[in-house]
């Protein structure tokens, strides 16, 4: 079966997870992704810098961020290493990097330098804060960008510390891949390459864009403070209620009139309860009382009871699961969102799979993440046409 990105060559110098993962996504769909592993760009996922990733028997984030890639360990500081790199760029369609501007310029890895070797190169940069503005040189660290984007203080309950979710960077990964494909489309039409930039700031802003847009339209101070879960605008859309044994229930029934008769029966309220018998009362004068009542009712039964009943009645309401749920979920496996793998040294393991389905070119796991320099000789020989003798001398003098 053919691949969507057959014959596309991507050369990557990335250290951050979100930018490296963009390269892996292109690899998933068939691009040849050559990662330059150089002392200057350590794989950020190789160490527990934030203290939130205790070491495991298998570096799962590294595996995800670098799957379907080849690794070329190259010393870019040596003239011979630079010559190899320039030859490689001449064969590339896309250069993908998260290097800061200053480092790009200092090392001759900026757009103008690379264009000398490939006129129509797509120069894709995963950045922290975008190509313009006073903070364009700040490092591409997701926490710094998430902190700027406005909802960390308000996603939580009143009085709680602001929360960092890590979800914003995932937007940036896909935005960057989208930008690369958009630029490739233009290149096919015009023969012209260009610079693509997607930033952690932009990704985090889009991740929360409804809340942000609502604030922009209304400039209302109520968006600046967290709201208690029992002070929501609609008791049947948004709030969460704890069940008897711990799991929480969430409701998504914005149009309360439509669901009220079934919902009232499920929770054990009288459909004609005069306090709650129309949408205006439920979302208006009696909403606080209704949330108190629901809080008590949901606490009477365990999560499993609610899960069964809500599903039977086809109500848009769920018990909030833990990661144990997708691990066992046949739907997640049938769609290959989660893969069962046989790892050569670790045996049976699971990994995240592929979030995009393509009928004629499904994403595939063609190779596990490479060790540093695993493909150095192969790339030089097959891709760039160096002789065995030349490769041996590069190995001896430490160029590769």
């Amino acid at each position, binding site marked *: 079966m053919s691949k969507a990105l057959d014959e596309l060559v991507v050369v990557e110098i990335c250290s951050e997870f979100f930018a490296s993962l963009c390269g892996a996504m292109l690899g998933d769909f068939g691009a040849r992704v050559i990662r330059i592993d150089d002392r200057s760009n350590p794989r950020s996922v190789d160490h527990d810098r934030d203290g939130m990733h205790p070491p495991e028997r298998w570096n799962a984030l590294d595996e995800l961020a670098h799957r379907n890639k080849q690794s070329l360990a190259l010393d870019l500081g040596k003239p011979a290493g630079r010559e190899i790199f320039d030859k490689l760029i001449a064969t590339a369609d896309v250069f993908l990097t998260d290097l800061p501007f200053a480092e790009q310029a200092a090392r001759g890895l900026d757009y103008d330098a690379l264009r000398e070797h490939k006129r129509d190169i797509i120069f894709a940069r995963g950045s922290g804060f975008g190509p313009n503005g006073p903070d364009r040189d700040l490092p591409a660290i997701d926490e710094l960008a998430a902190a700027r984007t406005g909802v960390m203080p308000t996603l939580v309950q009143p009085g709680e510390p602001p929360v960092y979710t890590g979800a914003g960077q995932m937007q940036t990964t896909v935005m960057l891949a989208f930008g690369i494909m958009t630029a490739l489309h233009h290149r096919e039409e015009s023969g012209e390459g260009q610079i693509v930039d997607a930033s952690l700031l932009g990704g985090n802003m889009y991740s929360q864009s409804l809340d942000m847009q609502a604030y922009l339209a209304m400039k209302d*101070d109520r968006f600046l403070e967290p709201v208690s879960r029992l002070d929501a605008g609609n008791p049947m859309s948004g709030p969460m209620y704890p069940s008897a044994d711990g799991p929480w229930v969430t409701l998504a029934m914005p149009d309360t009139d439509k669901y009220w008769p079934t919902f009232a029966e499920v929770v054990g309220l009288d459909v004609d309860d005069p306090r709650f018998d129309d949408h205006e009362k439920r979302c208006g004068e009696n909403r606080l009382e209704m949330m108190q009542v629901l809080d008590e009712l949901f606490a009477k039964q365990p999560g499993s009871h609610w899960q069964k009943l809500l599903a039977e009645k086809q109500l848009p309401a769920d018990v909030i699961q833990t990661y144990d749920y997708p691990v066992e979920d046949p739907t997640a496996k049938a769609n290959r969102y989660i893969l069962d793998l046989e790892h050569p040294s670790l045996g049976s393991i699971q990994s995240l799979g592929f979030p995009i389905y393509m009928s004629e070119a499904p994403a595939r796991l063609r190779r596990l993440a490479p060790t540093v320099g695993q493909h150095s000789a192969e790339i030089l020989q097959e891709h760039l046409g160096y002789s065995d003798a030349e490769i041996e001398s590069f190995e001896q003098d430490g160029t590769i």
Partner: protein
Amino acid sequence: MGEAIALIRKEGVSKALEGIRVLDLTQWLQGPVCAQFLADFGAEVIHIERPVTGDGARGVRSIKALPVGDWNQYFLVINRNKKSIAIDLKKAAGRALLCDLAAKADVFLSNFPIDVLRGLGLTYEKLSEINPGLVYATNTGYGHAVEVNRPSYDINVQALTGIMTRQGEPGQPPIYLGMGSGDTYGGIMSALGILLALHQRRRTGRGQYIDASLYGAQLFMGAPTLQPFLASRNPFYARQQSRKNARNPLWNRYRAKDKWLFLCAENDDENWSKLCGSLDAPDTAGDARFASPQSRAENHVALVEALDSAVAKKPAQEWLERWRAAGLAASPIQNLKELSEDPQAWENEYLMKTHCNEVGREVEIRGLPVTLSKTPGSVETLGPELGQDTEILLMEALEMEWDRIEELKAEGVIP
């Protein structure tokens, strides 16, 4: 470099996706956002709506679940740069019209439930027979492989992934990652899938079926913790973790006198000495429990406490200045008001201003998160009036005579 990527805003600049025609049979959020990304870069996106009421998001005020304001920012921003055609798909002639349009389109996109599309006869099999080059894209709730008969609002799907239970301090309720957080992620996934399929079409001449679901996108969104959990089954990754228990206290949130800060420094001796030099807390700086990376990791709870009390003594701005001078990465934790005044967001056009006809004034909108140096995205218009382009599209795209248009109006196929 700075010059090279400075945004180009001149007449006649070409659009990257010019010439791509997208039939956007979507409603609410995920599907419209997907098409919005394509429209921002110049694709001709035709939002297909039912007559009279249109996309449900046009009536978002009536459901009262979302704050809206005096203009319908929910609908108008995600449907910007689009055309609107109103067709009654319940009528056979309406469905025939859509098939005629599909014959002249590059992309068909829908986030309607699969059984609804089947009922309308708008399946992949049918449309790809009419136009083998068509990219047929769906945004399902739970993926293409299994038909899951359950509601797929953003929060329902997010609830299943496990990501919500993982957020916040232990003992607190789960945290929803923000209104529409999964929808917008599914939307950009779908836009990427469409471009991948269009790319492949250059070689094969054929379209294909693609799907990007809310569930698939939201599982991927959990990658930073779900992927290590899948590999290790270590419950650490599935449960709430307290900031008071951060094993690297130098990479943590701290409350200054007036607001919260995020400090992001690796736990090495160089950073520790920079931090100590800024803290005005000689007892902490000289504390033997914090003297090495290992001892700081071992005594992390005590160190977070010590930093909590030191940082609380001065306002955020002072810490930021000191830490910047010392070469430590840190950021203020802003609220939405501060974001809306942040020059970084404006200068990159992540926030923009545009004219809104509904209220006859300039409004602020979320802008263009993907920057292209030579073919930048743009916002030409906010969302269209319902059916505003119906007649002209039928004349231009289908070369329809006015008499036939009159007939369709008389039959109620179009308004």
